[in-house]
């Protein structure tokens, strides 16, 4: 049964539809990310679930119970805010204990719960951490306190609003791992808002790519990346080369796309005839001096126009006729000798099965 269910939920701000007839089901224990650019409505969805906003239309259910007319403080949610929103006048212990005191939890139980929560977020080791005030903590520690404060009340749903946005890259990666482990450990239904595609892919059981108040594609990370349903989802996540043209079925097997630049490339058979666009991830193209890689069914010759060194891989811009194609090549070592230079003649090859054919 779905733990959180949104049924045709809309939220209008004046004339602007921040959320547009959105339906969504989040299963018990699932980690779901709402991913999209700023202004796509993802934070609004979170705030609707939390109850800080009332939907203009539609209904929200948590564990089957309608949340209409249920104020935020009567919903069983744990929320972690973008800037943590720790109470500056309370120390770590009192911040974590806040929700328990509201619930009039007894002294002993409260102490045990707070200690356990601090342990859960790995804050127990730091000396006298309970008595420190938020401004005396590092960003990562504040993050952990915010998480402990949200979890200690044993909420039915955990809501996270870009919680790692303020952390530097290293710390962010560490916190992501910890959050994932923690979430698995306690099995709490989690809804996570982010604009960082990598973060969404790493953490989530399912990702909802949002745009203009609607969900463009909802699915597991691999599906989102490898079979994006819409052009927007394909574009927003990862990089891709676009080929536009007309699909023509010739006498032989399969179909060909005659691109606007005058190329003819093999496309999956299920593509209907007529105008079409296919996308190809730069890392799924192999680059070589002469012989194409085995398994590839499309081979094109071109000239290297530009080379960009990116550490883990090298990016080539390869000119094929009038078309520039972006290619990533894994940095397999061996130094700069093995690489291509601008002006080199190269051969690009790929599997036509790797082409992305999103329905618009």
């Amino acid at each position, binding site marked *: 049964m779905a733990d959180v269910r949104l049924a045709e939920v809309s939220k209008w701000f004046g004339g602007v539809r921040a959320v547009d007839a959105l339906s969504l089901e989040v299963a018990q224990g699932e980690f779901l990310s709402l991913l999209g650019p700023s202004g796509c409505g993802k934070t609004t969805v979170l705030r609707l679930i*939390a*109850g*800080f906003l009332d939907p203009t239309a539609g209904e929200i259910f948590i564990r089957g119970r309608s949340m209409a007319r249920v*104020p*935020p*403080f*009567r919903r069983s*949610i*744990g*929320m972690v*805010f*973008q*800037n943590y*929103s*720790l*109470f*500056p*006048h309370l120390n770590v212990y009192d911040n974590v204990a*806040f*929700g328990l005191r*509201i*619930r009039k939890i007894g002294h002993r139980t409260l102490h045990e719960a707070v200690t356990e929560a601090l342990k859960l977020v790995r804050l127990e080791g730091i000396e006298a951490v309970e008595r420190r*005030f*938020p*401004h005396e903590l590092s960003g990562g520690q504040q993050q952990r306190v915010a998480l402990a*404060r*949200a979890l200690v*009340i044993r909420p039915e749903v955990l*809501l996270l609003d870009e919680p790692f946005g303020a952390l530097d890259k290293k710390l962010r990666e560490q916190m992501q791992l910890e959050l994932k482990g923690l979430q698995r450990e306690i099995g709490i239904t989690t809804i996570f808002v982010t604009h960082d595609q990598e973060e969404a892919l790493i953490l989530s059981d399912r990702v909802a790519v949002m745009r203009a108040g609607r969900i463009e594609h909802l699915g597991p990370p691999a599906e989102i990346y490898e079979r994006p349903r819409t052009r927007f989802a394909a574009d927003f996540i990862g990089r891709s080369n676009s080929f536009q043209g007309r699909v023509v079925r010739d006498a032989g097997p399969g179909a060909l796309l005659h691109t606007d630049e005058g190329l003819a490339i093999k496309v999956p058979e299920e593509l209907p005839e007529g105008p079409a666009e296919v996308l190809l991830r730069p890392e799924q193209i192999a680059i070589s001096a002469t012989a194409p890689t085995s398994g590839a069914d499309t081979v094109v010759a071109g000239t290297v126009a530009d080379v960009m060194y990116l550490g883990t891989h090298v990016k080539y811009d390869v000119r094929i006729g009038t078309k520039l194609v972006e290619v990533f090549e894994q940095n397999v070592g061996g130094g700069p000798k093995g690489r291509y230079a601008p002006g080199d003649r190269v051969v690009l090859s790929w599997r036509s099965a790797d082409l992305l054919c999103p329905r618009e």
Partner: protein
Amino acid sequence: MAGSIAERVYHLKRSRWSVLAGVLPILSVYVALLVIPMLLLGQFSLYRKLTGEMGQVVLIREVSLANYAKFLASPFYFRILKDTLVMALTVTGLCVLLGYPVAFSLSRARRWKGILYLLVLAPFFVSVVIRTYGWMVILGHNGLVNWLLLASGLVTAPVPLIYNYTGILIGVTHIMLPYMVITLEAVLRKIDRSLIEAAQGLGANPWQAFSRVIFPLSLPGLVAGSLLVFALSVSIFTTPSLMGGGRIHLMSTIIYEETMGQVNWPSGAMLAWVLLVTTLAVLGLSQLAARRFEWRR
């Protein structure tokens, strides 16, 4: 070789001497009109006034602590000092009661915020004499309030609302309220809305969110506003002088009375020193308190 005038000005400006050039003019004004007068005030408070046989005023330029001894020995002066402090404390309390809800609403207002803010500030920009005059018109024997009370049949004779303690309280509270509201509002405005949401998310109802998060966080503003209002109320002159009508005396009005009415400058100077020390003590305490109540973010 020395370069252009502009270059020389530039190098001169980098030297410390230019600090003096900047502050010397204002310092000379302060020395003449603040430092010297305060020293003279101290000097005069040690003199004595005698009334001659013909009623003329004679100043005895002989140093003694007689004036201060008179103050300490006199229940009259002590009462005035006590009344002044009690009045200031009551006004402070009234300002908290009236000002907190207004400041709270103002800090959360979105529409009309500018107008509401302007309405709170408007009294600031109207002369204190005029505002006190307005209260005299409203509260006087033939004033608006007495007319309303008589017309409604609640009273049969006009109620004395000015020339007494009540009048002073109303008038001074009116002068001080804007100070309280803007000080409080400045602190309340800085309280992040997401903290209230965080509290609600943790199960706090609006009242709990207020009493456990907003109110404690607004304490620095409450303390700062209260001490400001208290310090200003202790020394306020115009309003209590007019609203008291010479019947109720406070420190500031008795200083004026002794100096200008009795032409007893030494006694006035002594009382002025007492008031100055009282005010500075309050402000000193407020500094200490402000530091204690500072929540760093």
